[in-house]
């Protein structure tokens, strides 16, 4: 078991202008389940592979516990990794796949047998030990890949999108298994994914990455509720948060965000906290919007229904705001009766409003910080 510390880590591939990993600092605690989340190409895999020692670190320092390991070759870092493609040895049986890493480490054979048996038991692979990977289903392969990591009893487990090759049902199952495994082993795990559901349900903390940089680190719900910037806000949540351009105008009691014809009071923000520029971004999650019969009044967005997607369990309404202020998506109760072309109003609870700087896209915290 070990903690992993990344300090100002950079990765520059030859022939690319942007670094693939750009000044990343991150500490993963001993025994923590940390998720790296981000869109495709944001540098998650690269970060993971640098931790594993499969990719040279261009700059910065990587430490496992207190030891700097930048120069330690992969095979000596005592880290196990589960690859997206599983990377099972196709010419070995499941048993050999499991024991290979131990044999190479000269663990004595009785202990190997014991560890393989125990891992196979945990993962339900007992029946499959004599098969080769080609004769396994996707889910079974996945479990062998996991088993291969478990038997090693490494300091740190790394996972690179290990579930993305599984079908939906299996994914949910394996997700739960992994969480249980983490609880049981108490090991340090770093888990890469671009699936926000995985991140939300599995991570003790998540680290959202964007374009090689760390956008935000925190507990899943904290990040969901208090995104550090518009990127994180959009990336977590499905359908994503509505983010609209607005102008700040002086209202009667507080500042007001004007979107086309609609006005939203910014009661929770002190005037001083707002940026000097007159523009900012206003965000609201689709599930926070409520259909409002009256269609009028402060705190209400007015517009025309431009699309309805009844999903059965709920209904999504796309509303084009008045005055060309953009489209918003509302996630409403399944019984909502509305048709395309209806003029509607959408209310937003005060505390559901997010503000972002129009240029830096950074979140502008409300006065009652921390509990939006």
């Amino acid at each position, binding site marked *: 078991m070990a903690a992993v510390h990344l300090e100002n880590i950079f990765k520059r591939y030859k022939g690319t202008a942007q670094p693939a990993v750009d000044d990343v600092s991150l500490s993963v605690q001993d025994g923590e389940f940390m998720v790296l989340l981000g869109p495709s190409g944001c540098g998650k895999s690269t970060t993971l592979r640098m931790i594993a020692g499969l990719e040279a670190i261009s700059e910065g320092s990587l430490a496992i516990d207190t030891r700097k390991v930048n*120069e*330690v*070759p992969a*095979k*000596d870092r005592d880290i196990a990794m589960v690859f997206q493609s599983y990377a099972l040895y196709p010419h070995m049986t499941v048993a050999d796949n499991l024991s290979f890493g131990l044999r190479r480490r000269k663990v004595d054979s009785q202990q190997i047998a014991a560890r393989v048996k125990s891992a196979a038991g945990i993962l339900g692979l007992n029946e499959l030990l004599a098969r080769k990977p080609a004769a396994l289903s996707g889910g079974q392969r996945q479990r062998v890949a996991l088993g291969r990591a478990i038997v090693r009893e490494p300091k740190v487990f790394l996972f690179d999108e290990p579930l993305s090759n599984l079908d939906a049902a299996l994914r949910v199952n394996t997700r739960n298994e992994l969480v249980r495994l983490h609880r049981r082993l108490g090991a340090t795990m770093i888990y890469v994914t671009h699936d926000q559901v995985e991140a939300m349900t599995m991570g003790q903390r998540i680290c959202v990455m964007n374009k090689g940089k760390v956008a935000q680190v925190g507990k899943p719900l904290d990040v969901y509720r208090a995104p550090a910037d518009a990127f994180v806000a959009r990336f977590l949540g499905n359908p994503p948060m509505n983010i609209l351009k607005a102008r700040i105008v002086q209202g009667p009691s507080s500042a007001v965000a004007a979107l086309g014809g609609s006005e939203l009071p910014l009661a929770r923000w002190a005037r001083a906290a707002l940026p000097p520029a007159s523009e900012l971004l206003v965000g609201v999650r689709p599930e926070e919007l409520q259909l409002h019969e009256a269609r009028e009044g402060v705190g209400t967005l007015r517009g025309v229904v431009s699309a309805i997607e009844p999903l059965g369990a709920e209904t999504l309404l796309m509303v084009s705001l008045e005055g060309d202020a953009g489209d918003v998506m509302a996630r409403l109760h399944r019984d909502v009766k509305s048709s395309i072309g209806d003029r509607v109003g959408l209310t937003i609870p005060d505390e559901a409003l997010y503000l972002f700087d129009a240029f830096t896209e950074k979140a502008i915290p409300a006065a009652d910080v921390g509990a939006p």
Partner: protein
Amino acid sequence: MTSASTTLKPPAAVDHREPLTAALSRMLRNGGLMAAVVLYTLYSALPFLWIGTMSVRTTSEISANHFAWPETFHWEKFRIAWVDSNFAQYFWNSSLIVVSAVAIVTLLGAAAAHCLARYNFRGNRLVYFILFSSIVFPPQIILISLFQVLVEYELYNSRLGLMIVYVSLQLPLTVYLLEGFFARIPQDLFDAAKMDGYSDFEIFWRIVLPVGMPAIATTIILNFIQLWNEFLFAVVLLSDQGSRTLPIGIRAYMGDYFQDIGMIATGMMIAVIPVVVLYAFFSEKLIQGMTAGAVK
């Protein structure tokens, strides 16, 4: 391999020594590797260099010292060899025979490979096996009777005859390579063209051939190399000096110059240079095609 021993020590002890030993062993390893690479490169390339130097030296210079660097470069030897021996004719014969044989075998082979890769019909695998299995036939099993057959067809001692023999020689390999590749062209592509209204033959012509180009290029190059250098059938099936191909020409040329090593070296260079130059240009294609899975 020194690092294997270091892993057995406790990590703390390794900590500061690791980089040094690792770097040292890496250097040694790389040094050894580089030495092996250089040696092998010399081994595979020195013969050319040697023949190359001999090709611009006279035989008396050569026999004085076989390994000296040419003092004066006798380029005129190339002209002499080219003019005095029938090289122009051999070149033309080889080109004519090999280019047409490769073109035909590619077309026939591609058509058959496409058919075998794409359609389900009874006997598909049987036909494939029959075509492919002739790859194991020792040449002598057909050489003698092929000679008789060509005589009967009145194709003995004709370039046409040798050309169609070449087609039959390279057919199995061509079908084998292309079938493997064509089978991996997605069925969807084929279906899409069908829905676009194209007939089976048009699809072959307009979709399969262009899409299969990497593999086709590979087979073309391989077939070309093999046929360009083919010797046995050319010796047996052509007797007329006017229709000889290049390998036979070089052999005859050796005879004509007998103990004139220098001239023979010149002749060899004349035969080698075009192929090597060609390859230098197309090596990328060849390797691409092979990597694309044409051979595996």
